């Protein structure tokens, strides 16, 4: 419903058709370089054009021995291979899909808390907008 808020637990992160169920917090930064094209006509203010874009998926993954999704991310990191068709979708199936490489696969082992992985997936190329009809 328009205007309704949404919680993160309703959003879905998938690698191919497999949901990343052990994901906790997920962040999807999308940024562009800023290219300054200021000249004297800008009346004392800077002007910019959009440069190259990039995007990534940062996630906290709850550790589980033998988890196949965790193993596939680990394998992609260790071998320098890619992950295809990674999608970040809302509860209605709207979001983005793309191919990624794994540039961070840190394992956090706090003494008195659960073990997690901090994962960064770097997007390769432009994200593709996804809607339920697409």
């Amino acid at each position, binding site marked *: 419903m328009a205007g309704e808020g949404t919680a*993160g*637990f309703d*959003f*879905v*992160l998938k690698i191919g058709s497999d*949901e*990343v*169920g*052990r*994901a*906790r917090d*997920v962040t999807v930064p999308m940024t562009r370089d800023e290219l300054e094209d200021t000249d004297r006509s800008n009346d004392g203010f800077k002007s910019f054009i959009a440069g190259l874009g990039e995007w990534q998926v940062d996630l906290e993954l*709850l550790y589980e021995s033998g988890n196949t999704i965790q193993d596939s991310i680990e394998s992609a990191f260790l071998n320098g291979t890619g992950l295809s068709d990674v999608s970040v979708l809302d509860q209605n199936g709207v979001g983005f899909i793309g191919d990624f490489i794994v540039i961070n696969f840190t394992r956090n082992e706090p003494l*008195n*808390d*659960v073990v997690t992985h901090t994962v960064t997936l770097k997007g390769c190329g432009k994200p593709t907008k996804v809607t339920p009809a697409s």
Partner: protein
Amino acid sequence: MIAEAIYNLLNAESTVTDLLGKYENEPAIFTFDQGVAPSDATVPHISIMEVGGGEFGTRGSQGAEVLIQIDIWGSNKLGESIRPLAWRVKEVVDRGRITPVGYTSLLLVADPPQRNDDREGFPGYRVIARTKVLKN
């Protein structure tokens, strides 16, 4: 179900149950919501209550971080100490493994015993435990 799982953990440990009083011929460990023991239970006895916690889950599973209050009560007779029992409870619960019904426990830790005497002079200790669980 977390309190019951802690009960099972403690009830299976003879180094704890050997130091407890009895209730209906069983080691005096209770999980009543009221956090009290029956009036005819003998001391020392243990009460276990779930007292709160916070959010813990994943995209795929609901879960919870649960705080458990374990109260150990002893006799008011001079010379009888429940401090060894309280420490034994802490040692059994800390880093222990529990299997709550319907959930998987990922972590169980316990703080050292805190003094918690009641108003009538019966000595008490409180051990606060914390677990993180995911729904099965």
